[in-house]
């Protein structure tokens, strides 16, 4: 069994896709900008397609818990197709199955990179992503039992993911001891992408080539992705949301959130906000 999985983990809207596009460009063997609709890095851990391909089963008629039981097996098998790194994206909180067994394939895991962003900005971006009001996204961000892709009304391309509240999500990944985790703050990526992406490459023991680094940063810039989305569409965009790449700034909550919304988030998410420098 290979030990090559690297989790690109985050609460939604925290820079995960940005890093996937960066890594895809950095590790791309040609000089061309990668196609955002055909990213070869970071298949999502909730993909029904990958679970079905690697188990041979049709899980469209499985219950949510039955699907979770298959994920460890499916992604261990899928990871065997990659050499040095099997990068998998996930928004799941780091949780075991109800039976206590691992839902994540720990034995095949090399490490994780955890992307964190100020929840006061996350809630605005999350509202755009879910096509809901900021009050609703704030309630979801503070909901200790929140799950995504959990609609029982329709077929989902992804299995249900328990993401919990923002604070519990952060704790679930950063306080586990099963494998090493590098925490990257979205705000630091914006401020000094060279420094933060170098940190990621160093953590993964990938040789840093400054020319490639600068070119990959340029090709994964927010403006470039926004432009590509406008031109070709972005298949990972939920149909209800107008633009996946929306604002991408930090601190813009000050112009948008109400006092009550700010108070609620700070009151309920303060542990991890303090720990990671947002308070």
């Amino acid at each position, binding site marked *: 069994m290979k030990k090559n999985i690297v989790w690109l983990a985050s609460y939604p809207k925290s820079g995960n896709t940005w890093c996937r596009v960066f890594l895809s460009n950095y590790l791309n063997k040609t000089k061309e900008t990668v196609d955002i609709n055909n990213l070869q890095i970071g298949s999502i851990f909730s993909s029904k397609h990958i679970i079905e391909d690697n188990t*041979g089963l*049709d899980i469209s*008629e499985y219950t949510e818990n039955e699907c979770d039981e298959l994920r460890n097996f499916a992604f261990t098998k899928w990871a065997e197709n990659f050499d040095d790194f099997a990068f998998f994206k996930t928004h799941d909180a780091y949780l075991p199955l109800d039976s206590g067994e691992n839902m994540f394939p720990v034995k095949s895991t090399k490490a994780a990179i955890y992307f964190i962003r100020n929840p006061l900005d996350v809630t605005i971006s999350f509202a755009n992503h879910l096509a809901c009001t900021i009050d609703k996204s704030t309630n979801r961000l503070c909901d200790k039992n929140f799950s995504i892709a959990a609609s029982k009304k*329709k*077929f989902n391309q992804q299995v249900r993911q328990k993401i919990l509240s923002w604070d519990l999500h952060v704790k679930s990944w950063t306080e586990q001891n099963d494998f090493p985790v590098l925490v990257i703050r979205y705000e630091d990526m914006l401020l000094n992408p060279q420094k933060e992406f170098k940190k990621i490459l160093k953590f993964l023991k990938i040789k840093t080539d400054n020319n490639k680094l600068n070119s990959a940063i340029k090709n994964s810039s927010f403006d470039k992705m926004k432009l590509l989305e406008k031109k070709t569409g972005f298949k990972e965009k939920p*149909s209800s949301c107008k633009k996946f790449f929306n604002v991408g700034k930090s601190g813009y909550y000050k112009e948008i959130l109400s006092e009550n919304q700010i108070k609620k988030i700070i009151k309920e998410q303060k542990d991890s906000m303090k720990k990671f420098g947002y308070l």
Partner: protein
Amino acid sequence: MVNNISFCYFLKKHYTYSAFGLIISSEIEIPEFVISKEKSNVTICYGNVPKTLKKAEHEGFRYQISKNEFLIKYSTWATYFVCNGEKVIIQPEKNADERDIRAFILSTVIAIVLHQRGLLPLHTSGIVYKNKGVLFAGNSGIGKSTIAIALNKKYKYKFISDDITVISEQNAAPIIYSSFPSVKLWQDSLDMLKISNNKLPLIRKDVNKFRYNTNTDFYSGILNPYAIFVIENNVQNKVEIIEIKGVEKFNIVRNHIFRAKMIKELYSNEHFKLLTLFLNSAKCYKILRPKDVNTINELSSMINKIIKKV
């Protein structure tokens, strides 16, 4: 063990049905199937199943498979053993819900019976046009059933299958067998089709998908092929239908063999022959439609025009 099962089988009540060109004698009532009085060629019964296969060629998550045998354990409700394309033995877990047991007979288990018999089960729904079959292929959740029901409701095409359609041959010509008069639909499809979920049974105890009966609009029998539409998501926000020709037809439709990932290449010779025969007689189109957008009226109207023109 098999003798004991056969003995018990004759003592118990059993039901005879026709589906997929098979006559099935079953200890389990399967109300979705059409009742038959013919002599059966497949039996389904409860009994003890082997713990493992003696000569498994592939193993997956809780299943083993060889060309003539298949064993799968669904954790909480039952283990199924399928052999020689003619026998299904089910060993249920304590307190298993019969709907759960039945749901997997109607999908994976019956598909393995068909594969073992050298037939070609495609992951498609289907309708009838002038005594010929029009099929809709695609991955789970893409809208195969919804489009078949929409065409039935709007343009009165009879319905032949949901999820699995069987291709076989007769006198060196390809044929399609009808399956059974029932469709599985999610709530959002029922909403699109303006069908109330009132009194519709769930397909499984804890899965919120409904079984919709199509008895009155069902065509039971054998058909010649007419066309196959392969449905895919479009990143762009528009509906497109493109005719596919030549070898690409084969490559596209091959991806929609039912449970292809489970059976791997075990039946590749049989499938190659039947698929080639089928595609020599059927036109092939790719439908690209935006994900999660209700395009059912536009799409059914476009398909109807193409069917009438083929």
